[in-house]
């Protein structure tokens, strides 16, 4: 497998407040993130709200400047481009290869532009084609996501949430990208529509040979769509793992907690009470010392409060976790031992 994108020691600090007479405060949204994205995979980023998933996605695509660290994009020939150091003009060519799909189907489409123009805009900005060719390309991309040609003159308000999300996908795909960052792309949709969009994303990946960074808080969806998962907590990567291994045997207590909390659509697998879930995600402004998770971790010991664990491969597997006891803890997965029934 070849690496398509790598993130090295990425940090992002927001400065809050800071008016004329106010003391500004610093909020570390991303803390020393390292990860790689392989060509052709779907990499999921999961975590509770506010843990920095969106920020990470936006930093990768340079929708926001990073505070520290580097993001490399690996070209076809194997050459690396450091996206973080490029200015607006220099990064423009790479904007064709890395595209984004947004969460909110309402606000991600300009209400004053027709669907045709929304999807044509990237082609026009990059001066890729015009006239008949432009039309054909827009119409065929929209057709691929299931928007019929007779609807392209409409404005976004005339479409349902699911259709708008499809238009957003078409806008991302019209430039023939290599990497698509989907930030909670199905979270705002109803279940039946969510399934349609998930299948669509799957099919498009096949057809165009895409790589996805799939940001989500829904572990059920992640299990379905992702090849590999990055678990984030308070701006840290606490675990990365191939999907099946993660759900089979998580290596980080936080992952276990997330899996434990995940409701399963089957009353016979009801978990009942007594989940040892405790506490709430601390505010990023007052991050705990030592292991960021120790305030909620049921395995925490003195060492955890003093020393920060590093992200490392666990027992030579493809799993990496940042927990002092990752090698020895026997954490509970989410799969049922018995094969599950399939509802026809």
């Amino acid at each position, binding site marked *: 497998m070849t690496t398509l994108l790598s993130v090295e020691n990425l940090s992002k600090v927001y400065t809050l407040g800071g008016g004329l007479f106010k003391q500004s405060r610093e909020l570390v949204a991303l803390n020393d993130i390292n990860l790689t994205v392989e060509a052709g995979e779907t990499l999921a980023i999961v975590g509770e709200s506010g843990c920095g998933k969106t920020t990470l996605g936006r930093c990768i695509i340079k929708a926001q400047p990073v505070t520290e660290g580097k993001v490399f994009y690996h070209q076809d020939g194997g050459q690396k481009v450091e996206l973080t150091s490029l200015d607006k003009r220099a990064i423009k060519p790479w904007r064709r290869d890395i595209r984004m799909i947004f969460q909110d189907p309402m606000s991600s489409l300009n209400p004053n532009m027709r669907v045709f123009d929304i999807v044509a805009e990237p082609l026009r*900005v*990059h001066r890729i084609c015009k006239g008949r060719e432009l039309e054909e390309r827009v*119409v065929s991309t929209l057709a691929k996501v299931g928007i019929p*040609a007779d609807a392209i*003159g*409409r*404005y976004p308000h005339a479409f349902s949430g699911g259709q708008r999300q499809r238009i957003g996908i078409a806008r991302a795909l019209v430039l023939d990208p290599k990497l698509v960052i989907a930030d909670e792309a199905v979270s705002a949709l109803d279940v039946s529509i969510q399934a349609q969009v998930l299948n669509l994303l799957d099919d498009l990946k096949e057809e165009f040979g895409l790589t996805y960074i799939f940001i989500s808080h829904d572990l059920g969806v992640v299990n379905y769509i992702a090849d590999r998962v990055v678990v984030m907590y308070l701006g840290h990567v606490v675990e990365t793992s191939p999907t099946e291994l993660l759900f089979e045997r998580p290596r980080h207590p936080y992952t276990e907690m997330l899996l434990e909390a995940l409701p399963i659509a089957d009353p016979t697998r009801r978990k009942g009470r007594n989940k040892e879930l405790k506490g709430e995600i601390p505010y990023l402004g007052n991050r705990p010392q030592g292991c960021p998770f120790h305030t909620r971790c049921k395995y925490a010991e003195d060492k955890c409060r003093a020393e920060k664990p590093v992200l490392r491969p666990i027992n030579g597997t493809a799993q990496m976790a940042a927990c002092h006891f990752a090698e020895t803890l026997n954490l509970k997965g989410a799969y049922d031992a018995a094969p599950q029934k399939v509802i026809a």
Partner: protein
Amino acid sequence: MAVDTVVPAGHVAPAKLKRESQLALMWRRFKRHQLAVVSLWIVVFFYLVAAFAEFLAPTDPSAYSARYTYAPPQGLQFIVATEDGGWAFQPHVNGYKTEVDPKAMRRSFVIDPEVIIPVQFFAPSEPYYLAGFIPMSIKFMGVENPRDPFYVLGADRLGRDMLSRLIHGTRISLSIGLAGVTLSLFFGIVIGGFAGYYGGWFDSSVMRVVEFIRSMPTIPLWLGLAAALPKDWSALQTYFAITIILSLIGWTELARVVRGRFLSLRTEDFVTAAQLDGASDWRIVTRHMVPSFTSHIIAAATLAIPGMILAETALSFLGLGLQPPIVSWGTLLQEAQNIRTLATAPWLLAPGVCVVIVILSLNFFGDGLRDAADPHGR
């Protein structure tokens, strides 16, 4: 547009939808506010009057006639009794006769129904220039003999025709509102737009200035500025000076609206999407952001006009705004300042009625526009 060529014919519903631009949508929502629609027609009517002032005004607004001081309104009548006891259609006004009030020993005019002065519509007149450059020699209405009295809305202290003055005053008052708002709009959009798009220190300082200006009491400020105008300036110069003074305050509100819209749009996903498309700042602002709030700007501007008109009226009424040879609602009302005149010649209050009607209509109209401009409103 390119879209049209690829949309197959025969799809009725999409074809209808596709034509519906944001403004069309706005208009459709606007039409649901009946009061606003009525107000719109009233506003249009007044602006038409202002545009065709010379044509509509029966006489020169400054032509005076000492004979007809405070002549009461004649009213326009259409039916005359014929000699054989029947009636005929004949637009006319009645003449005046003088009566002496035995108690007060004062001479006053009363309408004399015996005297019939026929009125002609589209009557030929002295040649004049409509709006200063279209030569015309026809007026909306007039009497055959220019020496006959023709005071549909009565006359003022100098025997000038109130109707003609009111019509010319409408032009000045309404145009000053429009000019003031245009000027404010220019400053507001440019300054507010920069502040909103770039943010940071520029934004903070602009906003401080705006707050400072807005915290000053407006009337004394205007009074001060207006009083500083040289008395020997020509009518035109004063007119422009007053416009500028008014918009000096007016731009702040619009700048705030524009900046607010920019700030909230800047974080919208579709603007981020445009940035990620690689679009330039200029393209993002002009193509993605400005069209999203033109409707808001139109609404805000409409709501700013009444304030301007009232301000002009107030200034002129106090004698600090436009000066008498110029006819505006304010200068007209200045003449209705004392109670005695009001008791004897209440028709001098006609400009006040116009002010109330126009201000209310503009407000209703603006409210309707504002509601209609909300893109997610229903």
